[in-house]
């Protein structure tokens, strides 16, 4: 595997990603064989036609040439056919790999106990599972297969030359090393350089270009557009200089094959002379010695691109390793735990639960806790409103209470047990977080509600939609509950979306419901009414009286009198009082 051994510092992340691709060996072998057959056809065509022409010059009986003539014609056809086969087999292996990789990533993400998934931005998740997984598919197509093929073909070339002339074989070996080892090294260096440039200067260029496009109106009114464009130009020049440093090694890599041809052709011509005069070879063999060096490096031609791809694959694999974490790597074909699949399955639904926070420090990093030393006692049926300035840790608190984010210190207890000690399924059955940016699936309205409870009846769904003020919306839909929603709710308005998410919370009827800004994007009047219904213990139109409800809100004035209010921040400070 010259492409892979030639490149230094093999990366553990890339090796792990390769194993998560679960490439079936037999299929990979078939793809490599087909690729060897393709390149082998071309090489054999060059060899046999060189033999044919020089042998023909000795004017043997035509019958002696029949085999060569038939072989030349057959090889002329076989290359195209093998080429098609090779591309089909290679892409099939790569696409299978991508499917396995994505499934393994999904499983690993779903199984992660810590907060990786919670803190991941949406675009990032898509980029990892989309582009980076695809990059590793390309890794198979452009790096793994060409690397293996180049080894096989190098051996085939040497085996062809060895019986003709040992000196010519030695020169050919040197030429192959030049084309198959030095060229990929240069290409790999170029790829790393330009990757660095992309990471550093190009992201600055991108950020500035986006800023100008986003803020064009304000920049024009302020008269600062020209200044901003000049700024972009200078950042772009810095990027250009960084990219330019990668151009030379890339060009050098492209020069390796012509130089190898120079070496091999000169060596073979010189070796052929002595051989012919000594009578050590037939005319046909001399013809092969003279002409074959020109056709011996086709496999090596793909290697600089393979090295470039390997550098990119490695970067992608490292990003994926960050995503799934280093300790709990995706175990290839981890068995799926069918028993704990949908909620409402094996884990019984309790009707009420007591949630307590004891000396809780919460935050995304131990260096900067968002809140410190919080004690909360939420017996069954209690109501709590959480308010505070933006960024004070309201969402962090909810994620920690829901067991989706481990506390930095202290603990969250469910019915007296530390959340971390309980099976996740049991925690989820008791405590449910309804995030502000929860996902609406591209399926029917009914299925989008059913995601909270598999056994949902239509009547309940309709009642919940009515409770959140969507009774007038449903009749406007073409197929009622069976209407398909666009991807991530793009076909519903912001207010409708918010109410659908609230309807999920209503349908959950779980013991503890944590809601993040459930009335944002609703008009003030409707929003305040819903907030009141959620927080007033006597109002069971939305949630049963036995359920504990914690609501984060931006509207302290809409909190019903007598509700406990947790004031957070600024900083990690907090206090609880009644509204």
């Amino acid at each position, binding site marked *: 595997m010259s492409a892979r051994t030639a490149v230094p510092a093999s990366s553990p992340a890339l090796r792990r990603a390769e194993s998560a691709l679960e490439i079936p060996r037999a299929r990979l072998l078939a793809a490599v064989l087909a690729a060897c057959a393709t390149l082998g056809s071309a090489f054999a065509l060059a060899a046999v*036609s060189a033999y044919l*022409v020089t042998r*023909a010059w000795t*004017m*043997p009986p*035509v019958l002696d040439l029949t085999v*060569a003539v038939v072989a*030349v*014609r057959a090889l*002329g056809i076989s*290359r*195209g056919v093998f*080429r098609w086969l090779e591309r*089909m087999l290679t892409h099939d292996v790569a696409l299978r790999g*991508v499917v396995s990789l994505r*499934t393994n990533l*999904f499983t690993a993400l*779903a199984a992660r106990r810590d907060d990786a998934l919670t803190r*991941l931005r949406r675009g990032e998740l*898509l980029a990892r599972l*989309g582009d980076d997984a*695809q990059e590793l598919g390309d890794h198979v197509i452009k790096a793994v297969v060409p690397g293996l093929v180049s080894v096989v073909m190098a051996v085939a070339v040497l085996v062809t030359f060895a019986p003709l002339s040992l000196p010519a074989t030695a020169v050919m070996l040197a030429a192959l090393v030049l084309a198959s080892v030095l060229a990929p090294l240069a290409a790999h260096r170029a790829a790393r350089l330009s990757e660095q440039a992309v990471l550093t200067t190009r992201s600055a*260029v991108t950020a500035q270009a*986006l800023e100008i*496009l986003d*803020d064009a*109106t*304000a*920049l024009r*009114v302020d008269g600062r557009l020209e*200044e901003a464009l000049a700024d*972009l130009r200078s950042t*772009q020049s810095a990027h250009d200089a960084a*990219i*330019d440093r990668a*151009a*030379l090694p890339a060009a050098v890599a*492209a*020069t390796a094959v012509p130089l190898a041809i120079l070496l091999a*052709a*000169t060596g073979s*011509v*010189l070796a*052929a002379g002595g051989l*012919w*005069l000594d009578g050590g070879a037939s005319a046909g063999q001399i013809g092969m010695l003279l*002409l074959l060096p*020109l056709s011996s490096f086709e496999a090596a031609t793909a290697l600089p691109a393979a090295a470039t791809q390997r550098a990119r694959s490695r970067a992608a694999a490292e990003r994926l390793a960050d995503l799934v974490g280093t300790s709990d790597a995706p175990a290839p074909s981890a068995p*799926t735990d069918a028993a704990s*699949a949908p*909620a409402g399955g094996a*884990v019984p639904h309790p009707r009420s639960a007591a949630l307590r926070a004891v000396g809780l420090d919460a935050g995304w990093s131990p260096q900067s806790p968002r809140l410190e030393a919080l004690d909360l006692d939420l017996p069954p049926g209690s109501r709590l409103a959480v308010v505070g300035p*933006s960024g004070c840790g309201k969402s962090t608190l909810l994620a920690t209470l829901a067991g*989706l984010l481990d506390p930095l210190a202290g603990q969250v207890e469910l019915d007296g047990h530390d959340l971390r000690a309980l099976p996740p399924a049991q925690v*989820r*059955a008791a405590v449910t977080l309804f995030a502000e940016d929860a*996902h609406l*699936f591209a399926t029917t309205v009914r299925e989008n509600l059913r*995601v909270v409870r598999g056994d949902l009846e239509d009547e309940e769904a309709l009642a919940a939609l009515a409770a959140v003020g969507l009774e007038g919306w449903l009749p406007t839909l073409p197929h009622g509950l069976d209407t398909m929603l666009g991807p991530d709710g793009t076909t519903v308005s912001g207010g409708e979306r918010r109410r659908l998410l609230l309807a999920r919370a209503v349908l959950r009827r779980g013991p503890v419901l944590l809601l993040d800004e459930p009335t944002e994007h609703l008009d003030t009047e409707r929003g305040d009414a819903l907030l009141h219904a959620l927080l007033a213990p006597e109002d069971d139109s939305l949630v049963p009286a036995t359920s504990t409800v914690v609501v984060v809100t*931006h509207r302290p004035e809409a909190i019903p009198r007598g509700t406990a209010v947790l004031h957070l921040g600024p900083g990690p400070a907090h206090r609880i009082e009644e509204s």
Partner: protein
Amino acid sequence: MTAATTAAAAGSGAGPATAPRRARRAPLDPRLLREVRAARRHVVRNVALGLVQSACVIVTALVIARLGADLLVDRELPQNAPGALALLVAALAVRAGAILLEQRGAHRAATAAIGELRGRIVGHAAQLGPRGGAGRGADLTALATTGIEKLRPYLVGYVPQLMLALTVTPLCLLAIALLDPLSALIAAFTLPLIPVFMILVGTLTVGRSERLLADMRTLWSQLLDLVEGLPTLRSLGRERGPESAVRALGDRHRASAMGSLRYAFLSSMVLELLATLCVALIAVSIGLRLVGGDMELAPALAVLVLAPEVYQPLRNVGSQYHASTDGLAAVSAAFALFDEEPAADGSVPAPDLRASALALRGVSVRSRDGEAPQRAELVVRPGRVTALTGPSGAGKTTAMQVMLGLLEPAAGRAEVISADGVASDVRALQRRSLWDQVTLLPQRPVLPPGTLRSVLADARPGVSRAELEAAAAATGLDQVIAERGWEADLGRGGGGISLGERQRLALARALLTPCPLVVLDEPTAHLDGAAEQVVLDLIRRLREEGRTVVVIAHRSRLVDVADDVVSVEASR
């Protein structure tokens, strides 16, 4: 890029845009050559290098053939022909050098062309105003960031090979014709078959592969839907189970992709088939004539070396096909953008806004699904606070942009009415003279780079320290200054401070500027109660100073401080 990666990646990230475009384009965009100097020089250089490489290929073939024939026929050692040997080495070395220059130059040309076009795209889009982004905002940002980078594989991979196909292929064919007309005839017959078969295969597969691509995109979006919903499923405790759906969807996606590729790869098969078959036919024809004694060995060997070289550039062009379509798509998208003329500036200096009113008369602007706003009527009187309200998507911000002459309405007009009652169309006004009197605070504040002090002092040249401190105190910026100091570096675009702090700084700047008109676009979005109070106080202060304030408001407390309230509505 191979056909497969494009096809299999359809939808990943760039979405439908990555689907192969079937629109036929010239392989070189004439406008790219005309307007981008780096691209033009790149093509010229590649033609020259192509000629050099053709000469090298032909010399190599002739010298090897001569050395071989001398050896076999006359038993003349190559070692005894140092001139010929030197020529062979020189030809091969010059070819390597030409490739080095070609690649080095190609990377440089790509870097220069990308930089130039990106600058023009961003500059032109900004000049076009908000509408330049409307309807294709995502396309535009994608074009300016990643889209235009597709020019690199096009210029580095495709264009040099195309130039080689235009030089090496015909010149080698000519050399073969001079050496052995019959071989040239075989090549001349098969060469035209390549484009013919490629087009044939293309038209046979086009409908089929497009259907399959559409199918793949659907599957891909379903897969993404599951992935995007994973955090939601997890918080509901339902994250286990969908992985089998992920695998099933992935498998269907793969099957679909392979179905599409089966046909896409046919074209590369045809190309390879014709190229190698032709070389084989030439070899057999030469061989049979040599046996009959109808041909010399030297030309036979030379033709045998030259025949594959005729087809090699064509095969490379074929394998770079996708680099070319992606690159050309980016180029034509860029030039389509440049074709949009920005609105012409007016010539009349704007009247003094301290005493002028602004008005919209029946203004409608086309939106994605109708008009927003629709027939907006409003008057902003000098020295008063006017609130624009309406549901989100009603076109409040758009109405404001029309009012300031940033955007051309589909119907109606924006007027500036001076103190003596003369109404002039905003389009006739010199925008700079109008905008110099306006402070605009967008939803996300836009700040120049610098320190807290320099950014604030920049708002009014010659401002005193006391005035700076007063403005800071009025907007709550003094807290930020107490924490970070006056010399805190904000970085570019105020990236060094939080959004709330940026908002305060922008408000303090608005207070300091002498501009008679202050436009605030949802100034309290994402602010808590205390910060909201700062904005309300600021608006009152601006009114006391006799300035005109336009505030785009969502919340009732903002509307309460306004003297005039105008509701903006969209078509339904």
